[in-house]
């Protein structure tokens, strides 16, 4: 546990209100505060509708909070930046670009030359094991491959923090497990700061150093759970540990309270 490190992300009193036509103001997030220390893997879990994705979009700078602020390395977030890499849940890589052009997108936007960004893209495609698919279009790839491309696309911008919004949410169980292991392996190499939104309890326990459990109506932090499972972790081994089962059941019970209250 390295929570003594300086906070990379500070979320301070973030509140989000939406104006709706017939129900007045809807409070989506109610004064959320927490910090993510540099090099820590933090997951946000909660029942659907608790505002966890909204919170991630605010940290990314894609949405503006009604009040409160987000600091990244002490600087207030005013908009999106390639330094805060984002992977979205909905296969958001560009269908009109070949795989290698997708991965080279960020460097292309920031003005890197054609040859350099191609080499860079190929490096990250090799890292996610998709170098052979460089000239394919996204439609020719499976869902799991597309999300690996999205991860490579983010890595090519060399971000210092990864913001991931249910990146494996739309994948089948087996593909999901494989990608979780790949992400663990990738992350354990250079331990970037990660904020990871998921609705899978297993996933959050498997990957994170800390789990932020959110409740809904309005979206709030219910509890923060430390995960002290040993690293490096591999899915198959970790799942066998009694500590994994204990944490899993604990998080599960907390979320079920929330879900049942609303169901």
């Amino acid at each position, binding site marked *: 546990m390295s929570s003594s490190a300086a906070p990379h992300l500070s979320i301070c009193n973030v509140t989000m209100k939406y104006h709706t036509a017939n129900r007045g103001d809807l409070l989506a997030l109610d004064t959320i505060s927490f910090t993510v220390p540099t090099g820590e893997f933090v997951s946000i879990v909660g029942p659907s509708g608790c505002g966890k994705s909204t919170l991630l979009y605010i940290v*990314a700078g*894609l949405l503006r909070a009604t009040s409160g602020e987000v600091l990244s390395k002490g600087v207030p977030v005013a908009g999106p930046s390639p330094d*805060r890499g984002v992977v979205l849940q909905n296969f958001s890589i*560009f*269908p009109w670009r070949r795989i290698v052009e997708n991965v080279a997108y960020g460097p292309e936007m920031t003005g890197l030359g054609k040859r350099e960004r191609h080499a860079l893209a190929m490096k990250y495609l090799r890292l996610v094991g998709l170098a052979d698919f460089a000239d394919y279009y996204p439609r020719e790839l499976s869902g799991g491959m597309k999300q690996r491309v999205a991860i490579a696309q983010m890595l090519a911008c060399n971000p210092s923090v990864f913001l991931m919004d249910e990146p494996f949410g739309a994948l089948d169980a087996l593909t999901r497990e494989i990608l979780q292991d790949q992400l663990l392996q990738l992350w354990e190499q250079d331990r970037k700061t990660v904020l990871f939104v998921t609705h899978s309890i297993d996933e959050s326990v498997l990957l994170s150093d800390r789990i932020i459990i959110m409740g809904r109506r309005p979206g709030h932090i219910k509890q923060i759970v430390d995960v002290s499972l040993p690293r490096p972790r591999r899915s198959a081994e970790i799942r066998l540990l009694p500590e994994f089962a204990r944490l899993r059941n604990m998080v599960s019970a907390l979320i079920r309270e929330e879900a049942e209250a609303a169901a």
Partner: protein
Amino acid sequence: MSDASDTNLIVAAHRGQGRAIAKFIYACVNSILRYYPIFILIALWELTARLGLVDPAFMPPFSSVMITLFQELFVSHELLIHTGYSFARAGTGFGLAAIIGITLGIMMGRSRMVESFVDPLISVIFPTPKLALFPLMMVFLGIGDASKIALIFMGCFFPIIINTYTGVKSVDKYFIWNARTKGASNFQVLLTVVLPGALPMIFSGLRIATSMAFLMIVASELIASNEGLGYIILYAQRSFNPELMFSGIILVSAMGFIADRLLLRLGHWLFSWQENEDE
């Protein structure tokens, strides 16, 4: 024997060329087979005219129409000149509509202010049959090229701007978000996400506009003109020259068909990244 072997030698020497010719013939036969109902129709036309089942003053045989068409196009160049007139007007109107329609459509899709200004205007003017405005345009712009180009512009503009606007609006928010988190500026988002994302819709708008352009050019030239294919069709009808009249009709529909096919081909090539339903 020696003839045959000579031929073989020539064939062997021009093998690549021979293969290309064979391929071309195959393509021709293939398209003839594909469009066989049209050939049946032409055969029926020829037969009924030759057998005197219809008055040749109304409907001359297909073959004599073809002869007239060939002569007027390539010998006297009469039809060629009129085709040039029609094509220039249609092209100008279509081109202007494409440039202004796409630009304004993108602005509408991207800016609330432009959207709320242009949208009501479109919903009021769009349902008006554009041909009904032609007499008004003649009053303002005269009976020359300007009023016809204006009519074609009106016909083409609406399908283009509406399709562009819809296309821009339907670009997935997550694509735009993804681009912005990778450091793309607003202009870069427009160029690398909004435009390619909306292009299939813009293209189908252009296809609708092409057919509108041909409709409007013929209509306007039928109403008031001294040149162009619409004029020729009407002139031929009035001067009891059915061969020329059918030549004009065939020319107009052939032009429309070819323009549509070319656009379709271009679309297939541009959107190879998309899933093709017909494959």
